[in-house]
């Protein structure tokens, strides 16, 4: 025990030098039978520390195990290790140019220039709810400038950290203030969804969504599962460009879903990460959300500017809660602040400044819509090229889902063995569920991918 150094008692307190020496003594474990500090030099100590020692040397973090790598990010890790010149990274959920490079939109660079050169700008804390004009304009973007809910001041909008942050804040709010703590998520969905909701304290259930047989929507299953959900449960809906499947309901199917949700009193929570990116039209991609607002009912919507403005690393997004009345919206906003303050106090300014700058300038806004459409068009073109290439090779199977699915991702329908063979033989990197990011393809690399798929389908069961 601590017999080697002076007792730290109130009487006759040791000099500072004595203290430092005794601290050093403890650190070196001299005369102390615990292996305490030896661990720092020898990663595999032969002596196990004495449990009765004052500083046993066993880390307080001893019970913390290594967490597995994130499944999606792990794809890029493996890709980076591969020396092959023909390797292709189709795991990444970030847009790439025809040359395979990340893209910063011209209009974003312009906005950033204005911001950085503006001598009057300061870096004072934003309000807890974020930048006011950013919030108003975000709401208009998704709900429409003439949305009655906006006119009637029924929407509480708060700036959050991209889509993830908006979902988390919304979920925490619901756990605190909503009577039902179950959320239904589509099967499959983005890998991070269940974790976000579980950490917030919601209980997660799923509803059928993807039909592997048709590589399309399991509409019957969806209706059955939402139909049997308890009244008042929360339902997660991908506003457009479902991730990972790329399968979206038709307008008619959305209407059907809306009626079911309203009749069962379910609370819709939209995840809108691809507005404008899916079809190329901002309004078209917001139709599902606007349908639900038009009926006067309540809903939540998480928006992300990661993809449609290429602001991935800036973490810009917004959470909107559409309420029945302005009075409720005001109270809801005040309570959202109580969720945010203990999480990170207030949101980061840079990305929101960029968005607000672009939105407030007619010229820049137009430029944005054009650049956005160009990105969406390139994705759509890749779909067509891949489909044509597979047809040209006579690859067995119906590949029309490639052109029917929408957004950044295609759910190929390939199984894990086929995926593994594509990685091994052709150096194609993708998630094991068969999802490929069309954003990672170019005209130059489509033939290689088509060859890989052809080989996997014809040679691997």
């Amino acid at each position, binding site marked *: 025990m601590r017999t080697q150094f002076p007792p730290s008692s109130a009487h006759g307190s040791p000099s500072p030098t004595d203290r430092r020496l005794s601290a050093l003594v403890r650190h070196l474990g001299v005369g102390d039978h615990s292996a305490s500090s030896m661990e720092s030099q020898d990663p595999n100590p032969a002596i196990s520390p004495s449990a009765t020692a004052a500083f046993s040397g066993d880390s307080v973090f001893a019970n913390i195990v290594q967490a597995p790598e994130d499944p999606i990010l792990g794809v890029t890790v493996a890709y980076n290790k591969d020396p092959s010149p023909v390797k292709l990274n189709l795991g990444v959920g970030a847009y790439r140019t025809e040359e395979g490079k990340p893209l910063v939109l011209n209009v974003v660079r312009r906005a950033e220039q204005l911001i950085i050169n503006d001598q009057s700008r300061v870096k004072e804390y934003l309000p*807890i709810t974020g930048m006011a004009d950013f919030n108003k304009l975000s709401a208009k973007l998704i709900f429409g400038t003439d949305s009655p809910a906006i006119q009637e001041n029924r929407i509480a909008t708060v700036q959050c950290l991209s889509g993830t942050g908006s979902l988390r804040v919304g979920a925490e709010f619901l756990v605190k203030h909503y009577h039902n703590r179950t959320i239904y998520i589509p099967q499959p969905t983005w890998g991070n969804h269940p974790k976000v909701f579980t950490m917030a304290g919601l209980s997660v259930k799923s509803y059928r969504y993807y039909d592997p047989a048709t590589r399309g929507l399991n509409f019957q299953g969806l209706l059955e599962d939402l139909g049997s959900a308890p009244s008042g449960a929360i339902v997660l809906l991908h506003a457009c460009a479902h991730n990972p499947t790329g399968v979206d309901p038709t307008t008619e199917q959305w209407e059907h879903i809306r009626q079911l949700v309203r009749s069962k009193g379910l609370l819709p929570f939209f995840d809108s990460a691809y507005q404008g990116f899916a079809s190329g039209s901002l309004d078209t991609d917001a139709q599902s959300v606007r349908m639900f607002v038009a009926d006067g009912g309540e809903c939540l919507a998480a928006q992300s500017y990661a993809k449609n403005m290429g602001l991935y690393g800036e973490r810009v997004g917004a959470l909107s809660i559409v309420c029945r009345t302005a009075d409720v919206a005001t109270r809801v906003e005040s309570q959202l602040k109580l969720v945010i303050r203990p999480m990170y106090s207030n949101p*980061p300014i840079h990305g929101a400044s960029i968005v607000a700058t672009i939105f407030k300038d007619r010229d820049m806004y137009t430029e944005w819509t054009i650049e956005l459409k160009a990105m969406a068009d390139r994705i759509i073109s890749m779909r067509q090229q891949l489909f044509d290439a597979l047809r040209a090779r006579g690859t067995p199977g119906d590949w029309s889902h490639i052109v029917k699915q929408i957004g950044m991702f295609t759910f190929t329908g390939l199984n894990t063995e086929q995926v593994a063979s594509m990685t091994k033989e052709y150096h194609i990197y993708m998630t094991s569920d068969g999802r490929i990011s069309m954003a990672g393809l170019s005209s130059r690399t489509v033939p290689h991918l088509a060859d890989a798929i052809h080989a996997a389908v014809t040679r691997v069961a």
Partner: protein
Amino acid sequence: MASSTILSLGSASPLALLAVSENSKVPPQKVKFGSSGLTNSFLKAKGNSSLKSQSFGRISMTVAVNVSRFEGVTMAPPDPILGVSEAFRADTNDAKLNLGVGAYRTEELQPYVLNVVKKAENLMLERGENKEYLPIEGLAAFNKVTAELLFGADNPVIREGRVATVQGLSGTGSLRLAAALIERYFPGSKVLISSPTWGNHKNIFNDAKVPWSEYRYYDPKTVGLDFDGMISDIKAAPAGSFVLLHGCAHNPTGIDPTPEQWEKIADVIQEKNHIPFFDVAYQGFASGSLDADASSVRLFAACGLELLVAQSYSKNLGLYAERIGAINVVCSSSDAAARVKSQLKRLARPMYSNPPVHGARIVANVVGDPALFNEWREEMELMAGRIKNVRQKLFDSLSAKDKSGKDWSFILKQIGMFSFTGLNKAQSENMTNKWHVYMTKDGRISLAGLSLAKCEYLADAIIDSYHNVS
């Protein structure tokens, strides 16, 4: 068909849409952001509902009727710290003074963007870097320099790879990640926090579901540290508790332990197998020296203790709104550090996926470049120096004006941005209501918001509140 709708903020009429097609010859014009109907009715609604908020509790709805599902949500009170600035903004009196939130102001009482920050941002703009997602743990270059800044580049904990550093959303976000780690891996363990402490600490631990209790800290009789009370309370806590310590410039009191007291605190923590948990929001800002302000943290690391340290660059680099900070966990082995880091990532991913890049790049550029780093040190000394001058002037004004013989020297002894005046709630309210001096109700004033020119006015206000209000 490429037609697009411009978002308009200034329109009162819902039909004021601007539809522009690709080939339009309409000259570009700025869309003005003016006060819209939305803002006005929002303010009105806010004012009304604070008078009639009621608590309904949760309403169970089985049928979708026209009552909101959130009808039972009550109006939350304004944040006790951030709400002060809101109130200040609403005040039209010329003499008003904002000594609420801890944000640095120049002598002209203007916000301040550091020159090195502007230089860094211009460099970044020139380089035209991309905006790809950072890894979950943040910008590697930032994580490296932030740990080195805190512990010293030559510190054994760094050389031995024993520090898990994860970029966090300034101090708050870093504290929250640590709290989440404590909740998951030390279930039932308490965090001991000083009485008083920064108002948001309790909220963070409450929301993270980490139990906490207080240790004595501030002694109102001496307007100093209740050291015996502090030691006694730390000793009395169950072994293996986390002890939240302010690395320097204690918020809200400005009272820091002496070096000898820090050593005693380290001893006691070691005795009880407690885990020190530092909140370092003012490194460089307290004394003007980055190294001196980190000495408490370095002492504990040198003792061989495992510890947590939350850092913020809000004040010392003036990066408030960029939300840049870090959580550091010093472990007894590099293996433990790697595991801890992996679990911190697992907690960050469902909170916000990965942190914002802009502030991290600014810090990496400033701290990582010797020329910029030196320039930063100079600007820091100027900022800390201004605070010290203001303290002196305030003390001089109070001593000259107050004939009661009260000892105001605590103003000089306290350190950092804040001063704990010793004014109680009623007296603080008098400061606001009568003198238009905005401060928090616990008697804390932010000297960063005080100019030399206003010291005499403030002295008058303090003397009046102290002596004439109870």
